[in-house]
């Protein structure tokens, strides 16, 4: 049982590392004033487009983005963007795009030889992905 719990914990940690910790951030545009709020839209009704504009006349509510580490799970990204954009009152996200960067991170790794353990730096390459778009609402 303990072994099973350990395995589950290791797998969860591995999955979390793979997908990376992520959060959605919003930069409001305040085109209709900083105090203007909009009624929420159900996440399932929020549209996401890269090249198409679903409405002729719209107000841009802000820039929405989600950052992920070491890979992009599109379903998860779309789900979280829809959720947060809907709460903000957006009916669609347009101009969706992804920009990725790679970086080298140094972590200290415990290395043991002949019962003598030392900490050694280990270089790993990680990639960061920023998935973003503009939140809009029909005028």
């Amino acid at each position, binding site marked *: 049982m303990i072994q099973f719990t350990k395995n589950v914990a290791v797998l969860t940690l591995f999955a979390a590392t793979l997908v990376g910790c992520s959060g959605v951030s919003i930069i409001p545009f305040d085109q209709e004033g900083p105090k203007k709020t909009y009624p929420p839209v159900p996440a*399932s009704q929020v*549209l996401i487009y890269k*090249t198409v504009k679903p409405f002729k006349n719209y107000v841009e509510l802000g820039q929405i983005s989600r950052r992920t580490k070491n890979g992009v799970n599109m379903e998860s990204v779309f789900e979280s963007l829809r959720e947060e954009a809907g709460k903000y009152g957006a009916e669609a996200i347009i101009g969706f795009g992804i920009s990725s960067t790679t970086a080298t991170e140094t972590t200290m790794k415990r290395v043991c030889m002949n019962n003598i353990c030392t900490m050694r730096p280990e270089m790993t390459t990680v990639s960061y992905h920023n998935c973003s778009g503009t939140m809009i609402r029909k005028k």
Partner: protein
Amino acid sequence: MIMKNYLKVLSSISVLASGCASAQFSTSKVGSLYAPRRTPEQIEIYQTQGPKKKYEEIGIVYACCGHTDAMVELMKKKAAECGGDAIYSLQDTGAHSMNASVLRFE
């Protein structure tokens, strides 16, 4: 038996050649599904201007971790599977990944 091993070697070579790339598709509208009607070879590619005929964007395709040509092939395959007729606005995302919108003609 020899045939089996031969196939194994062939599939390993094709995986290595594609650089283990993979593609994902997400729909623009939640719950919308489109029946496939083209083969990957029939998927048209548009980059700086969209098709002249009427179309709708049905989703976005994202490919990762391979050579550009392998990723484009995978994006076309995924677009075909998901009912697309064309891919538009191929964007090199960086870190060996690409994305594009998937179009379906009216």
